[in-house]
Each structure stands twice: as structure tokens, then as C-alpha cells.
């Protein structure tokens, strides 16, 4: 899932400066699961923003809340359609994709992010989320026994551990596992350590965001005459 966490209230308050009617829009998908922008968090941020605005002498600003099922898909944004006209700003508690989808859909309404989108990851333990995928567009997990060195090695080493791995931990922090220790452990349990002896092929980054913003087009799914927008 996409993992995010909330922005601090003063930052949000300053962002929405100059607006009088603000709709806080939560998202029922990834950010609900990672407890950053679901219905509950929308209530919390809405309440906190109202109090913060009041203390800043802007009691008359209306802050209302609603949560839609999925901010990143037009069909689900539809339910907001009429309501948005009553507001001059939207504070999106979706991920960066949700914020942009709302901005695209409502050209006359200011849209602000209430979250900092972090990464694609998993729930590691209750309350802890960990980054797993960098979306490089050219998955090599097969070569690395299911542990991604591009995402999880702080130096994106494809050929093996750097000289700073200590006791299974990364140079960067005691909290970060050394991806290469994990790769080794797993190769060992699969009986495939010998596969790590060969020299790695350099990554072709043109399939990643380095190649510009990407699109996935499935012609078989496109409706005739309604292919990709651009």
C-alpha cells in the first residue's frame, strides 16, 4: 500500500490561509489502512484545524469533513462533485496521487495536501510501516531472492553489501536492516548463496521515474476511441 503520515497542524493552517470554506477530504483506500487519512483521521485533522484557525482569529472559517472511497479514481470522486462547489479549498488527506486527482478534477478549487506521502510499503507490526518498493519499473526481486536492494539498501548496491554493514544493520541507522544481510540470509535458506558470486548487471533507470512521469497503457482495456489522454 501507499504509506503516508500527517502534516503538522501549523503547516496545514498556514497553507489554507485566505480560504473561508474548507472541505477536508479523506480517502478510504491505502491511507485509511495506514491510519493517516481515513475517516477517523479526517475527523481529527478537521477538529484540530478548526481549533487552530480559531486561535489564529479565524473562527468564521468553515471546516467540514468527508471521506470518499478512493481519491485516485474519477468514478469515486464523482460523489464530491456537487458539494465541492460550496467550498473554496479542499484539504486532501489522500496520498500525492489523490491530491493531484482532486486538483485535476476541480480546476476552480484550490487543493492542498494534508499528508506527507512516504512510500510503498507494508505494515511491519501494529503501528509500524516499512518501505519495500521504489517502483523502478524493472523488477529484479527474482535475482535478489525477494529483497529489493534498490529500495532497501541505502546505497542501492546491486553487487553486494557495502563495507558499512554491521551486525545486520545499515550504516544509516540502527533501525534500518542491511538489505544485503537479508538477501544473504534468504539466499542461504534457499540454498542459493552461490548465485550471489556473479557480477550484477547495472540497472537501466529509463523505466523508472528518471524516464519522466510514466503511464501504463493496456490497449485491451482501453475503450475504443478513448485511449490514453496524451
Amino acid at each position, binding site marked *: 500500500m501507499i504509506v503516508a503520515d500527517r502534516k503538522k*497542524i*501549523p503547516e496545514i493552517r498556514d497553507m489554507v490561509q485566505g480560504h473561508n470554506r474548507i472541505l477536508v477530504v479523506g480517502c478510504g483506500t491505502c491511507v485509511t489502512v495506514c491510519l493517516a487519512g481515513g475517516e*477517523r483521521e479526517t475527523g*481529527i485533522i478537521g*477538529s484540530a484545524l478548526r481549533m*487552530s484557525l480559531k*486561535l489564529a482569529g479565524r473562527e468564521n472559517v468553515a471546516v467540514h469533513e468527508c471521506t470518499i472511497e478512493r481519491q485516485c479514481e474519477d468514478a469515486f470522486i464523482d460523489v464530491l462533485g456537487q458539494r465541492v462547489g460550496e467550498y473554496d479549498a479542499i484539504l486532501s488527506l489522500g496520498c500525492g496521487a489523490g491530491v493531484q486527482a482532486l486538483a485535476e478534477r476541480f480546476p476552480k478549487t484550490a487543493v492542498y495536501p494534508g499528508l506527507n506521502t512516504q512510500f510503498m510499503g507494508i505494515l511491519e507490526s501494529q503501528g509500524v510501516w516499512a518501505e519495500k518498493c521504489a517502483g523502478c519499473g524493472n523488477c529484479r526481486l527474482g535475482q535478489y531472492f525477494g529483497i529489493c536492494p534498490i529500495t532497501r539498501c541505502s546505497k542501492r548496491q546491486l553487487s553486494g553489501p557495502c563495507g558499512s554493514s554491521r551486525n545486520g544493520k545499515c550504516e544509516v541507522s540502527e533501525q534500518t536492516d542491511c538489505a544485503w544481510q537479508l538477501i544473504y540470509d534468504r539466499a542461504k535458506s534457499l540454498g542459493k548463496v552461490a548465485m550471489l558470486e556473479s557480477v550484477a548487471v547495472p540497472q537501466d533507470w529509463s523505466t523508472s521515474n528518471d524516464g519522466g512521469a510514466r503511464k501504463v497503457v493496456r490497449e485491451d482495456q482501453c475503450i475504443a476511441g478513448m485511449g490514453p489522454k496524451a
Partner: protein
Amino acid sequence: MTQQPVILAFCCHYCAYAAADMAGSMRLQYPSNVRVLRFPCTGKIEENHLLAAFEKGVDGVLVAGCLEGGCHFLEGNLRAKKRVQRVKQILGEIGIEPERLEMFNLSSAEGPRFAEIVKEMNARIAPLGVSPLRKSETHLENGIAEMALQAEKAIQGGNR
């Protein structure tokens, strides 16, 4: 507008609520500005509820749960403790003194301790004064009534 601070006590049914009851029946003296809300467990109290109390203009909030290790639902009070911490952080960001909110632990037999806690919260709120978010007494009273109703709903849900 009343200048008397109002404190809301979010009490667990199994301990603090019984302790408050005992304090009453023991005729212990404690400030009358505290309103008690009964919850099935402090673990049932959401961050939303605590923020809502402040938004409605309450001046101080105390969350009173069972002694650590003594939760009827095993770890409800430990969850409440963490939620209180998080709401304190958000209050700080908003510009409300985080010390207006506190978590306490006590057993159902501690009537006098309940009275003490209320006095302690009052002493803490006194120098801070009335919340800058207070609108009017009516608004506040309506808000508290609404929250009490919500808490009772939670109790019914909890006992089912």
C-alpha cells in the same frame, strides 16, 4: 460567559467511575466543576473524543483508567495512555497547552484518590485560565451533553 473552568473526566466504568461514585458517597469535598463521562474502558476513548472536548470549549480533560496491569480488557488503559500522548502533541501544534489533558490511573477503591486528581487538575488549569476556544456557556453545556450521550452509547455497546 462563565469564567469558571470546566473539567471533563473521561472515566472507565470499572475503576475511576466507581471511585468517583465512592468519593461522592464518602462525601469527600472536591471541586464541583468536574463533569464525569462514563466509558466502558479508557481504551474505548478515541483521539477524536478528546479533541472534540477541547473544540467544544472544555478547559481541562482528564482520562482516568485502571491501574496499569489491571485493565478489565487487558490493555485498554495502555492504549488510552498512548492516545493521550498523541492528542497532547496535536494540542501543542494547535496552540493549546498540552497540560490541559492528562491520563491518571486508579482503582475502584480509591475514592479519595479521585477527589485528589480533580483537585490536582484544577490546580493545573487555574493558572492557564479558561480555554481560548470557549464560545458560550450554552454551547459548552450542549457540547458536554452531546458527549455524555455518546459515552452512554459506547457503554451500551460495550455491555452488549
